[in-house]
């Protein structure tokens, strides 16, 4: 269950799950909704697959992601979204996939 909580702790991943509620989508279709790099999105998808919240289905050169959540997990998603849960946790994303913003230049 801890992997589910960690997966739901990130707002980007929660939005991915909400998009997949509408219909299964390809990795490219999902990435269009976010302003992050493709490696970062891949890392998010990997976390969600690892938590068994989504399922990846390779169709040719395209990966289609579909929702795979129990009712309890959907309820937890709803609570997390409603209360805006965001846990700053070092395990929420692999370190090498985090986009570090450019440091602000001094005067």
């Amino acid at each position, binding site marked *: 269950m801890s992997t589910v909580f960690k997966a739901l702790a990130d707002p980007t991943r929660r939005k991915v799950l909400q998009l997949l509620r509408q219909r299964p989508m390809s990795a490219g279709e999902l990435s269009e909704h976010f302003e992050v790099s493709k490696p970062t999105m891949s890392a998010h998808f990997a976390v969600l697959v690892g938590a068994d919240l989504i399922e990846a289905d390779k169709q040719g050169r395209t990966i289609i992601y579909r929702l795979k959540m129990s*009712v309890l997990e959907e309820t937890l998603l709803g609570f997390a979204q409603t209360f805006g849960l965001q846990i700053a946790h070092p395990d929420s994303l692999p370190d090498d996939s985090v986009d570090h913003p450019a440091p602000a230049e001094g005067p």
Partner: protein
Amino acid sequence: MMPAKQSPSPRTMRIRALVHAALIIGLAVAMTLRSPDYVSRETTNRILGIVTGFFVLYYANAASKTLAPLSRIACDPATEQMLRRFMAWALVLGSLGYILPWVFAPFKTAMWLAPALLATALLTVGIRIGMRKRGSRA
């Protein structure tokens, strides 16, 4: 790096279901044999109703997740996903509707109310599937 969470294999799920069925039957037999000397018939029925409802709740909760592989045979993945989620939610709410009367309602009321609420949930699922089929034919 988080360890990947694996869904139980179909064989594990079948064994688990058989164990659960055996538990329910065993509990029903044990309590019936002890009734009415140690446990009243009403308490027996209430406990069995609650236990049965919890098992329905357990399987209904997981239905949307465990039936996921079947989505590959559906011609319309979006509709299949919607129906699968609707079924799971309806059965979860129906099973809660089955449990709560056994916990709180007077015994004679619980005897008809609990099955009626679960049956309503099942009927709702059937109607929804029927509506989808009718819509696809139109």
